């Protein structure tokens, strides 16, 4: 048991590839948690152990014993955070479990938008920040410039920035001392009723839900009856433990400490990130603040290519949800695509991850409809209706207005691309906010943009226009009334919900024209002429026709050719598997995918 004054809880915040895991490894090695020689072996042993115990622990919190230069021994808890903005709520809960953060920036790359977004989150949580410039050993490194940028965004001085090379180990000792010296110890009251924050939670096939907890007040012991306050769930604390990084079962955890808790509960819904754990018998009167229901931002319809796979898709979604309580879905029927699900995601990355896991891990062939955001329709009756799919939009007659969600977007770009970035944002109905120069070469731009305008391909466009140099981050802002219309795409006279969308009136015509033109290229010729139309209500705004196929035959077939011909037909038949029947029209999967990438 360590006195709270000797505990330091911290996270490492870094942009992807800026060296977060190498730095973490180096800290473990320098403090003797892992010897340099055993590093690889030990990690492997660890995995075996996990397998034996049937737990797959995500590296979420590692306890390190560190004896400072002063001779005092300390307990350092390194808490992992998800890196991406889609999971900013999870990030904020992880940061809530810390008193400080090590903000890492690549000496050759400088500050990136994602780093900054997480740094701002950390500052908002009241965390002490230790700025670090990593990879100072690289030939392309410019530690001075990176340090200046960091000082500028954090409002400190370049001298406070610690320069390290996680690769060579340079500066690691200085960083460890700074963690002890600069970061505050945890507060909290050991005598008060138990309050523990659940800052991560995942499902293990054998053990059920495993939660990472930070003890804010009081103390928790094995076999205690505890309550999860958001869900009023009373259970026994069956196992408590820590990672060093090897798993180690402990009898209890006290104020300021971090560890894991297993209760045997199997439903992840019941133990959610952000919840407060207290004792059933002597509960706290006040849960920790900040618990939020996960709130999906982006919606997309997922339909199995083969209608018979609907039940398998449901099972797969149920399984994914065991590990991802933010995933929401409900069954949906599409005239064009049959039975499927409307699925809500935290953001675009989340959507991509889920889709990829469904296809790869569950071997499902899916058609995904164009992502849409959650609109709010204000009806003449005074009612408000949530619109999560273009099909949910009530008739124009009963509508007074439609509101759409906006996001605050932050973009960091080299100065030379400011013009093209502004151009892009303007096309996407963005409102310019502040602009600051991090250095003469790099600027930080702030905008308000309708979320719908960035769900398609904004990030790709930004990267293309800035040769990959710009970085982007966003967070939800408020809802606002916009002049929005639904553009329906009709294939052979039947509206295809997968291609229909809600857009700003000014963009309806270009959208319709582009979509119709694109589909004409992507949909192969059929047995009959197929008209493709774009319409607002009953008004057709664009039309093309796919002419009926006239020739599909091998000219010459002679005796010797028959085997070869049959094999050719079989191959061609295979190639047609990835078609989806929409009414009487065969539509290739690529058409649905390409519809998502439509540039208007």
């Amino acid at each position: 048991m360590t006195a709270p004054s000797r505990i330091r809880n911290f996270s490492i915040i870094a942009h992807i590839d800026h060296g977060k895991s190498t730095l973490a490894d180096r800290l473990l090695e320098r403090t003797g948690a892992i010897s340099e020689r055993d590093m690889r072996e030990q990690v492997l042993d660890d995995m075996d152990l996990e397998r034996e115990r049937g737990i797959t622990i995500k590296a979420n919190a590692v306890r390190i014993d560190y004896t400072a230069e002063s001779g005092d021994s300390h307990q350092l808890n390194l808490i992992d955070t998800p890196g991406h903005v889609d999971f900013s709520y999870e990030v904020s809960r992880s940061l809530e479990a810390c008193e400080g953060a090590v903000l890492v920036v690549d000496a050759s790359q400088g500050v990136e938008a994602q780093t900054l977004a997480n740094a701002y989150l950390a500052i908002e949580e009241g965390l002490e920040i230790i700025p670090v410039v990593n990879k100072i050993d690289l030939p392309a490194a410019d530690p001075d410039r990176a340090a200046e940028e960091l000082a500028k965004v954090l409002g400190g001085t370049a001298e406070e920035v610690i320069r390290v090379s996680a690769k060579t180990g340079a500066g690691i000792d200085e960083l460890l001392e700074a963690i002890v010296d600069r970061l505050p110890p945890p507060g909290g009251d050991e005598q008060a009723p138990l309050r523990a924050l659940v800052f991560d939670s995942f499902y293990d096939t054998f053990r059920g839900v495993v939660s990472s907890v930070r003890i804010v007040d009081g103390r928790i012991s094995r076999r205690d009856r505890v309550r999860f306050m958001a869900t009023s769930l009373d259970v026994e604390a069956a196992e408590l433990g820590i990672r060093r990084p090897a798993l180690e079962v402990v009898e209890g955890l006290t104020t300021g400490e971090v560890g894991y808790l297993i209760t045997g509960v199997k439903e992840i819904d019941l133990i959610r990130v952000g919840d407060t754990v207290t004792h059933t018998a002597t509960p706290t009167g006040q849960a920790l603040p900040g618990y939020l229901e996960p709130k999906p931002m982006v919606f997309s319809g997922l339909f199995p290519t083969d209608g018979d796979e609907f039940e398998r898709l449901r099972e797969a979604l149920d399984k994914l949800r065991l590990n991802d309580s933010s995933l929401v879905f409900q069954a949906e029927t599409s005239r064009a695509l049959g039975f499927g699900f409307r699925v809500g995601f935290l953001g675009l990355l989340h959507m991509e991850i889920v889709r990829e896991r469904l296809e790869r891990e569950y071997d499902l062939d899916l058609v995904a409809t164009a992502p849409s955001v959650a609109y709010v329709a204000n009806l003449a009756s005074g009612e408000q209706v949530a619109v999560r799919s273009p099909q949910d939009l009530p008739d124009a007659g009963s509508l007074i207005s439609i509101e759409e969600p906006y996001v605050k977007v932050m973009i960091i770009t080299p100065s030379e691309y400011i013009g093209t970035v502004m151009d892009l944002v303007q096309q996407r109905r963005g409102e310019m906010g502040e602009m600051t120069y991090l250095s003469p070469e790099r600027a930080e731009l702030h905008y308000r943009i309708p979320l719908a305008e960035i769900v398609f391909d904004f990030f790709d466009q930004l990267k293309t226009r800035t040769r990959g140099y710009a970085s982007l981050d966003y967070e939800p802002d408020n809802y606002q009334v916009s002049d929005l219309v639904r553009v329906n795409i009709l294939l052979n006279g039947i509206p295809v919900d997968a291609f229909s969308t809600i857009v700003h009136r000014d963009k309806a015509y270009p959208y319709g024209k582009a979509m119709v033109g694109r589909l004409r290229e992507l949909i192969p010729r059929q047995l009959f002429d197929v008209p493709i139309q774009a319409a607002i209500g009953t008004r057709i705004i664009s039309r093309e026709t796919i002419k009926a196929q006239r020739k599909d035959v091998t000219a010459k077939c002679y005796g010797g050719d028959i085997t070869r011909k049959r094999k050719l037909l079989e191959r061609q038949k295979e190639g047609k598997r990835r078609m989806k029947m929409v009414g009487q029209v065969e539509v290739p999967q690529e058409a649905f995918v390409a519809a998502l990438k439509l540039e208007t």
Partner: protein
Amino acid sequence: MSGTDHGPRTTDDTAELPDSAALAEAASSWRSAYVHIPFCARRCPYCDFAVVAADEPGGGEIERYVEALLAEIGMEPGPFPVDAVNLGGGTPTRVASLHLGRILDEIDAHLGIADNAEISIEANPEDWTDNRARELRSMGFNRVSFGVQSLDPLVLHALGRAHSPEEATSAVIAARSAGFNTVSVDLIYGTPEESDASWRRTVRGVLALEPNHLSAYALTVEGGTALSRSISAGAPAPDPDEQADRFECVDAAAGAAGLSRYEVSNWAGAGHACRYNLSSWMMGEFAAFGTGAHDHRFGVRSRNIRRLDAYLAGIGAGERARSGSERLDAFESERERFMVGLRLAAGVEPGLVGGPFLASEEGRRLVDAGIVGLGDGRIVVLRPLLTDLVARSVLSVSPDDC
């Protein structure tokens, strides 16, 4: 000619309409022999057949090849009397008439050729003279098909053909005066260099020669050919809609000239349907000799080695130079019969596969769209240019459906 162990054909087809169901069904019991002659003066840019051009390494081996062919025919285990013989290629007329006669004699000696058999040869117009016509006729050939391809010099040039339109015309006339029973003209349509007007002139010009058989094939881009390489490099590709227009043009004109279309790409006057081809489309058995030739007998499809040197070596070692074979199970061969039969204007008997096919979702769509029809108990593709599309749908029928 001798050897009619299995008796003469029971159907007298001399007056049968080429597209009649009775003729087609009779053809399923015919037997034939195919001999491949791989030699050509040069390789045409669209051709992917087993061919040795005179200017390619390995050329100039015609005599050795003929000896190998005779040896291969001599390896036949017993009589297999045939109703049709076809010498194809390549360019069979690259081989001297004397040798071609020896090949026929050897087939008659080892397999047996029926008395009124169709004995056909493929010929290039530039090799064809009055003298050649008389020689071949006297050896027993009674059918010739000329690789005319087009009467437009620009198109002939694009197709890499050596003959002129005039040579094509005189070849047809010479064959008829020599007494060939069936004279066929082969055409290729849809070459990018061809226009609608040029194609109309070709069709009109060819029909004016009054051939009693016509084959017209859409130019097909086969992988690995010079044509496919030049298209990859940016040359224009055949346009399927233009090809459909050309097909409609030739189909109408041939019909008006008294020729009936009996297969996707073949038209004939009464009694002139190609027996060898009809039989192979109706799953008749055929023996095959020469490089890359395919044999179909006793439920087995086998093929010969395609490379000339390897074929010669194999035969030289006293073996049938086979490179592979395949035996289809009952369901697969029934499905194959059905799919290939769809190419015939007479349609195909439903058999095991037809019913489940018509009942399938794809089958119903094709019937609704007027692409597949049912008449006189036979299933017919009403839009012949969509036959492959129909055949692919047939592949969805599984043994469990039957």
